[in-house]
């Protein structure tokens, strides 16, 4: 048995192990891996997600047990200090030695730290490992507590911008300092970089270009950066992201050939100048280049495995450096040669400063081949363009159709269907998975879902950029096999929400148990119970009181549960308009029950800290003062936010408050697949932020513009213009149809934006259905909506007037005591739940 020693347990070192572990000749080798970090290999590409809540374990490429299970000895926190080539052995920093037959150097790189005076001051970091991120986090929270909140990133490349996002997420004001005259100089041209810069600045990140940093200022810790020309940027911390340096010192010290400017020299078999030593990943110098991307590193690992096991696979002549990523919500991609433009090649560009989209494709003059390109703002066509480039596929008659879409009649995309690609087309470049591999997994290996295919082929497990394309391929292939990918709500019902909507209606099923007996199996769960509760509400407009125990916990008690098991109460305040008398009433109720009060984002007042048993008493008082349930606890219409409009505002075009109230009153109480929010603005200044809602209405000359399918939250989406210059009645008619269509067809817990994303045909199709009535269902949709509107009932009024229903709100059924575990502490003249341990 041959001994293989791998130095380095990063992404590429791990890939080598994974490939070898799966190799048919695996049994001929014994593998020992040395990693200097305490954790086994983790996903550095998605490192920033560590700031967004992912744990260190989430980022692991394989659980610790994987190595043992595959017979691989993993030695973490163990640094190799020397290589003895003559005796084929390596020495650890603890002076232990290990012999090898083959040695793999996957030592990676270190961040390049330019020799600027003051670079060793406290508060200066690099961005490479989990430990770096922890240190940045700690330091950031330290300075924040002292009221210092400015952070700079040196380097406007890919990683630098990621780091800027990370510090922004930590609540600091971010600055990016770049030496070059534009951002991402290696991937973007001037116009693309400009577009990206504007987007970044809009998000509150300051960009400083053409800046050479001469000095890092401060006493013991950093207080600023001094640029050439004496200009000073004040900053409380600095993250350096100025490129990488290959870690070649081990190789150099044992006499292996290395490049003048670093990097272990390798041939196309990944062999160094010693035939028993291979090098892979960022530590290598291949064809005079160092490649800081994961895909070429994975290719190198595959080549090294093949070579050692007797195969003849070699590395491609030119390395593909295409990338696609999402930077702080801005999509950016570049592929092939992004800059090429000469006597034989022309660049076709599309620039839209309004929507902030820039696209560039570089096409041969004869219009036959695509050589590269850049996408900023909308990179949805990246995968298709990349495939055309990579496989040398023929271009449409007018190459500009590739970035502008086909204009005129018909909706066929210039990019074609995923199934049109040749079998050899590489879909996942991180894992080298072709279209053929993916289709094969379905046709030959019996995969029936995206998850199956990913598990079977490992496609999309690297950077994940190809996932949409894999999903398309899976869907199309299954369809061509006559298998429809089945979407079911949970293990208890083999139907989608839309199918259940129809089945319940047609069969006149009125209770959850009846549905479970006739359509499902088992005892149900926390997924299908609320989903069906929502359907019963949408079909029969029954309130949450009728089948209380199938409601999601908040709906069951008609309030929002909070940290310590207490509840918050939100009465409806239509359009955000409220009289002084009602405000006083709210204040009195809050004082009577000692509730914490806060204004919500939807122009209402939230009363926190009510015990379960207090809820009916609070609501009795609120109802006596003319309030109704605000349904803040339900997947239902929440609020229709408004600005004051033409009644008060000197710019207002129409009465936005009156219209908002009318709409909120119309749709109040209506339950839907997810929460629904609306907004009405009195003019184009859009003070009601209506375009961040599921439906937004904006007053313009001659009527209302209707926007649909927006949302705020984690993935903000602007609502899309749906129809223009509508009168009140037409606007409501379209809203009726749109909302009802959504309620009937969306999957559970899918907001309108995501629903539209997944709707075949997109917004154009939706316009046909809603405005042109292409399905002939518009009248039914309106009728169904009208029925819901006509049968509205305030469910809190129902609950407090019915002694049987009121029982639900006692904490104990065998005692009048209240929960003695619930505790509050004072905060800013109000109260808050006692913090968790």
């Amino acid at each position, binding site marked *: 048995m041959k001994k293989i020693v791998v130095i380095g347990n990063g992404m590429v070192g791990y890939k080598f192990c994974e490939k070898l572990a799966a190799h048919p000749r695996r049994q001929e080798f014994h593998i020992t891996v040395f990693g200097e970090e305490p954790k086994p290999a983790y996903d550095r590409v998605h490192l920033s997600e560590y700031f967004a809540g992912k744990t260190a374990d989430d980022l692991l490429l394989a659980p610790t047990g994987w190595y043992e299970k595959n017979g691989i000895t993993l030695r973490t926190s163990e640094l190799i200090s020397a290589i003895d080539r003559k005796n084929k052995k390596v020495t650890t920093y603890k002076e232990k030695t290990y012999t090898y037959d083959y040695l793999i150097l996957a030592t990676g790189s270190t961040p390049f730290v330019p020799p600027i005076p003051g670079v060793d001051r406290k508060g200066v970091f690099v961005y490479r490992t989990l430990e770096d991120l922890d240190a940045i986090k700690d330091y950031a929270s330290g300075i924040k507590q002292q009221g210092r909140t400015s952070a700079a990133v040196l380097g406007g490349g890919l990683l630098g911008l990621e780091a800027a996002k990370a510090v922004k997420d930590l609540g600091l004001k971010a600055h990016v300092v770049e030496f070059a005259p534009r951002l991402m100089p290696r991937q973007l041209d001037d116009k693309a970089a400009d577009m990206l810069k504007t987007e970044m600045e809009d998000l509150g990140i300051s960009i400083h270009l053409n800046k050479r940093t001469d000095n890092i200022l401060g006493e013991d810790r950093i207080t600023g950066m001094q640029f050439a020309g004496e200009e000073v940027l004040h900053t409380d911390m600095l993250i350096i992201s100025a490129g990488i340096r290959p870690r070649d010192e081990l190789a150099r010290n044992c006499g292996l050939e290395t490049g003048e400017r670093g990097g272990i020299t390798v041939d196309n078999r990944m062999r160094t100048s010693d035939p028993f030593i291979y090098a892979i990943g960022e530590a290598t110098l291949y064809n005079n280049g160092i490649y800081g991307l994961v895909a070429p590193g994975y290719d190198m690992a595959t080549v090294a495995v093949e070579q050692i096991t007797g195969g003849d696979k070699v590395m491609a002549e030119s390395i593909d450096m295409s990338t696609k990523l999402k930077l702080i919500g801005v999509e950016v991609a570049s592929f092939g040669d992004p800059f090429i433009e000469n006597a034989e090649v022309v660049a076709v560009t599309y620039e839209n400063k309004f929507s902030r989209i820039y696209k560039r494709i570089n096409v041969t003059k004869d219009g036959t081949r695509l050589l590269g390109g850049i996408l900023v703002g909308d990179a949805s066509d990246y995968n298709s363009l990349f495939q055309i480039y990579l496989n040398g596929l023929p271009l449409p008659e007018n190459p500009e159709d590739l970035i502008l879409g086909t204009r005129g009649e018909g909706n066929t995309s210039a990019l074609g269907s995923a199934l049109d690609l040749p079998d050899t087309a590489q879909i996942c470049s991180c894992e080298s998975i072709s279209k053929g591999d993916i289709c094969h997994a379905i046709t030959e290996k019996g995969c029936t879902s995206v998850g199956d295919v990913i598990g079977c082929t490992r496609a999309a497990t690297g950077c994940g950029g190809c996932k949409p394309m894999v999903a398309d391929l899976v869907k199309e292939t299954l369809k061509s096999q006559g298998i429809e990918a089945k979407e079911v709500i949970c293990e208890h019902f083999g139907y989608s929400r839309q199918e259940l909507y129809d089945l319940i209606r047609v069969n006149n099923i009125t209770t959850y148990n009846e549905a479970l007996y006739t359509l499902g199996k088992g*005892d149900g769960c926390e997924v299908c119970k609320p989903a069906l509760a929502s359907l019963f509400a949408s079909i029969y407009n029954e309130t949450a009181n009728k089948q209380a125990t199938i409601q999601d916990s908040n709906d069951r008690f008609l309030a929002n549960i909070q940290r310590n098991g207490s509840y918050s109460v939100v009465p409806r305040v239509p359009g955000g308009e409220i009289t002084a008398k009602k405000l006083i009433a709210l204040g009195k109720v809050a004082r009577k029950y000692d509730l914490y009060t806060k204004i919500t984002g939807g122009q209402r007042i939230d009363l926190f800290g009510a015990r379960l048993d207090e809820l009916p008493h609070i609501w009795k008082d609120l109802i006596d003062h003319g309030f109704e349930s605000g349904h803040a606890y339900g997947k239902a219409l929440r609020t229709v936010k408004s600005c004051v409009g033409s009644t008060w505002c000197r710019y207002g075009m129409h009465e936005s408050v009156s219209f908002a109230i009318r709409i909120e009153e119309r749709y109040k109480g209506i339950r839907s697949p997810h929460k629904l929010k609306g907004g009405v603005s009195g003019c184009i200044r859009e003070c009601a932020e209506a375009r961040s809602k599921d439906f937004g209405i904006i007053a313009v000359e001659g009527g209302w513009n209707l926007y649909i399918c927006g949302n705020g939250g984690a993935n903000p989406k602007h609502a899309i213009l749906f129809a223009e210059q509508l009168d009140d009645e037409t606007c409501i008619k379209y809203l009726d149809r749109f909302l009802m269509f959504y309620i009937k067809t969306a999957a559970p817990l899918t907001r309108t934006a995501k629903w539209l994303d997944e709707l075949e045909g997109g917004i154009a199709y939706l316009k046909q259905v809603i405005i042109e009535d292409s399905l002939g269902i518009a009248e039914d949709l309106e009728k169904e909506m009208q029925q819901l509107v006509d049968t509205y009932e305030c469910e809190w009024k129902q609950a407090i007037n019915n002694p049987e229903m009121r029982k639900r709100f006692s904490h104990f059924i065998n005692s009048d005591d209240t929960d003695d575990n619930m505790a509050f502490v004072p905060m800013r003249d109000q109260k808050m739940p006692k913090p968790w341990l």
Partner: protein
Amino acid sequence: MQQTLEQYQTITPKDVKTWVRVGRVHDFPEDGGVCVKHGTKQIAVFNFARRMAWYACQNLCPHKLEMVLSRGLTGDLDNEPKVACPLHKKTFSLKSGKNLNGDDLKIATYPVKIERENVYIGFSD
């Protein structure tokens, strides 16, 4: 807080020293939970009508130590009866008390018996 948690230990039918009557069958909603008080303990009781079965467990969520489990949705996972905590939707077996979707949190369960429309819970004290 640790004390609050420690007073909940799983009781099997053979450990039972006293059966405490906590209510009449019709006080308990079908296929849902309610909370009963016994001394300083809060116990969640589930009338799992679909199976004609009854289950009881601590009302205390072991994750954040709030008295909320009785307000969770019930159901099954591969036939194992379960309750989902209303705070973070962690699900627990009503038989073994095991956390069914991760972690090594566990809840204490208690035996329930029904005699002449009365509901009793078994304790060892």
